[in-house]
Every structure is written in C-alpha cells, then in structure tokens.
C-alpha cells in the first residue's frame, strides 16, 4: 500500500523524493489511460476562495475522469464565508461531506491550518504567495517526460524569481535530483537568499544572470515566469529591464536539441507566440500534464493506487 494514503499535500517538502517519484509513476499510468472510474464512490470538495482557471478546472477534470463526485465553490460569494464563517468552521463542516478537500485560499498557511482541523485529507491548490505543490509536481512530471530523467539537469529559471512561488518550489524539489541552476532575473527580482541556501545546503551550484541569452546554450529546461510591472516601484526601471527576460523563437538557435520551455501560465508577453510553433515549446502540454498528476495524487491519497 502506498505511503501516501490518507496524507495531506500542503507543501512540496511534505513528500520525500521517493514519494515524488511514486506520484510521477502513477501519473504516467493515468496519461496512458485517464478515464478509469476508480473514485466512483468518492466525493471531492473543491473549495476555491479566490479565482483560478487552470488549477480548479484540472482538479475537477481529473476527479471527473476518475468518476468522483465534486462539490464545492469557485467563489466564496454566496457561501457562509461571506456571512463571516471562520475557515475552521467551513473546513470542519465540509470534511463531514467529502472524502478529500482541495483548497485554494489567499491567506498564507490556510491549507496547513485546514489540514489540522479537517478529518479528511487536504490538498493545497495554492495558499497565497506561499505554496502550490501540485504545480510543482506537474513541473517535475513535465521535466521527466521531456528529458527522460530528473537527475543531473541544467535548469534555467527566468523572470520574477523573487515572488514567483512556482520557481521557489521547483528549485527546492530539484535539489533532490542533483540539478545545476541558472537564474536569470532583473536585479530587483533575484531568487530569495533562503531558496539559494537550500541549493547550497544540498551541495549544488547556481549561477546568476541578467540576460536570458546567456543560458540558452546550456539549459535542458528553461522555466519562464512573468515579470509583472507592479513589482517595480519605478516604471522606468521596469521599461529598462522588461525585455531582458523575454524569449523569442530567434533566440533559440544554438539551444540543445533536448531543451524544452516550460511556463506555469498564464503568460503575457514573456514568451512570444512564435516560440509556440517550435519543437521546444512545452507549456501547453505541461498544463495538460496537470490533470494526470492531480489524478495520481487523488488516487494515491484516497488509497486506490
């Protein structure tokens, strides 16, 4: 029986390296055969206290394809939350209606708290700027799928490395797999020292750059993120640096054949549309992989895999 049965997934550090691999192996099985009615006697509650497109739809698609019933809300308006009900009371109540709770909430730490008061397992679908572990799991799945392995890869992370939670989680997770990190960002948006410390503590190397062109020949994966104008107090500063983190098709000459471009989406202009047609674009497939990974997590946590 899987060690994941009955577990919560709140933070990427909640699972061991072997457990990541286990989830990716199960996801691979669902990719081959996604429509299996193995959760037909289960109820999954999706509680989205703030808007989400990809994450909510992919969780609900994953649950539907496995035959589970879905209850929940995509907006707290019209629920008791609007009347001032505490998160504690909402979770205690919902955990008596469902076998599994999937929750997104803008308050950081809310999912950890929910897991402590819930009587059923909780999967964190994003708690503000803190954690979004299922995104990280699908990133790992996409990396393994495109590279055939997770070990010994050159991972380039580009854009807003300071506030981008997906980058923080990915770097922490890839520290288990002997990665070398190439970090491209404007000075203002460098990776936080606490995350760089995780790399050092794992005995791994990272290199910092300000221009994306410098990493193209070495990268196996280029993980793009959005640089948001509102992160810059000075609009002139944004104008000065905004093009240094934009990827265009012409820049990809000289990249490795196996290199693939990933992005947690939504993108704005950091990957120009001409990249979409190149063999290196993988971000839409990456989003699709989210369904298989979430199927794997739900099946393992509910004890049917």
């Amino acid at each position, binding site marked *: 029986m899987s060690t994941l049965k009955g577990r919560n997934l709140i933070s990427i550090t909640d699972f061991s390296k072997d457990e990541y691999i286990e989830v990716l192996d199960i996801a691979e099985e669902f990719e081959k055969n996604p429509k299996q009615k193995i959760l037909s006697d289960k109820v999954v509650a999706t509680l989205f206290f703030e808007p989400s497109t990809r994450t909510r739809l992919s969780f609900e698609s994953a649950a539907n394809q496995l035959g589970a019933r879905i209850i929940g809300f995509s907006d707290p308006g019209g629920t008791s939350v609007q009347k001032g009900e505490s998160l504690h009371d909402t979770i205690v109540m919902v955990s008596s209606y469902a076998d599994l709770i999937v929750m997104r909430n803008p308050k950081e*730490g809310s999912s950890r708290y929910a897991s402590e008061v819930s009587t059923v397992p909780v999967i964190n679908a994003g708690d503000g700027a803190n954690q979004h572990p299922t995104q990280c799991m699908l990133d790992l799945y996409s990396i393994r799928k495109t590279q055939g392995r997770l070990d010994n890869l050159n991972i380039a992370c580009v854009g807003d490395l300071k506030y981008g939670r997906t980058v923080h989680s990915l770097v922490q997770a890839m520290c288990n797999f002997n990665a070398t990190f190439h970090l491209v960002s404007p000075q203002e948006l460098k990776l936080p020292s606490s995350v760089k410390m995780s790399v050092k503590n794992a005995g791994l190397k990272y290199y910092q750059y300000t221009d994306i062109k410098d990493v193209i020949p070495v990268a196996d994966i280029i993980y793009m993120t959005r640089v948001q104008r509102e992160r810059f107090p000075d609009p002139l500063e944004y104008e000065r640096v905004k093009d240094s983190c934009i990827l265009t098709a012409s820049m990809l000459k000289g990249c490795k054949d196996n290199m693939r471009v990933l992005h947690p989406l939504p993108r704005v202009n950091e990957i120009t549309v001409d990249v979409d047609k190149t063999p290196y674009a993988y971000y839409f497939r990456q989003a699709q992989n989210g369904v298989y990974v979430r199927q794997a997590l739900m099946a393992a946590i509910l004890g049917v895999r």
Partner: protein
Amino acid sequence: MDTKKELVVPRIENGTVIDHIPTEVVYQVAHILGLEKYEDEVLIGNYLSSQKFIRKGIIKVKNKYFTKEELSKISLVAPMASIINIKNYEVVEKLEAEIPDHIENFIKCMNPMCITNHEKIATKFDVVDKENLKLRCHYCEKFTTKETIRFCE
C-alpha cells in the same frame, strides 16, 4: 574611600530576580511578562553598573516563579539574562534564559497575509537560527526575526 557596595535594588524574600538584562529591553521584558498587571512588588532597576556588561537592567518580582513559557519569552528578547529563584532571601536556583526549539502561542507572525493574523489560531514557530533569532512560521513558512518580532497581547 568607602568600597562597601550599596544594594541599589532591595533584596526580596521570595520570588525571582531577572539579572543581566540589556538596558534597552528592560521595560520590554517587564511588558512581555505582563508585570504591569502583577499585583505584588515589582522592582525595576536600569542602567546599573555591571561586571558582565557596562550597564545592565534588573527586575525583581516578589512571590512569583516563572513558567517555562515565560522563560522562553525572556530568552527571545534578553538571551543573556540570568534567572535567579529566591526563597527566604537565599538563591535556590540559577537558570539561563534559553531559546527553545519550538515556540507556541505568544509570538505574532510578521506576515500580514498569514492565516494566524486572520483567524483565532495559536501561532507556532520553529526556531531555525538561535544566534540571529530567526523563527519559521509553521503555517505560512515565512521568517520572523529579531527586527520583526511582536508578542501576542
């Protein structure tokens, strides 16, 4: 010249002496221990001569012995302080204010978006760096430091 030392803060018969408090945190120590509301004798001395420091603060609290949690609170703002338990004017125990590995309930998370600042939840922290005082919130995973530490009311 008379070398006899004058006792600036009087002795107490029973209770606790918190000695070697850095001068800038004496009143903070009194506050986090809730001594403003303590209904017995509390003697506070500050900027006193010290062998350990150039100047120090001292607090003597009559008829009170501090709990482990209260000692933890002292350790966070005055880690060099000595805690001396007194019975019948005699020293019966000397303790150091030791920073614990885990802290529950009495520190506020510095992150305004942390769930603990929005719901009635007891805060929990892991102490990840005792020397520089760095506390990791169990919920939001953000760090509260010496500069951002605040105590629950």
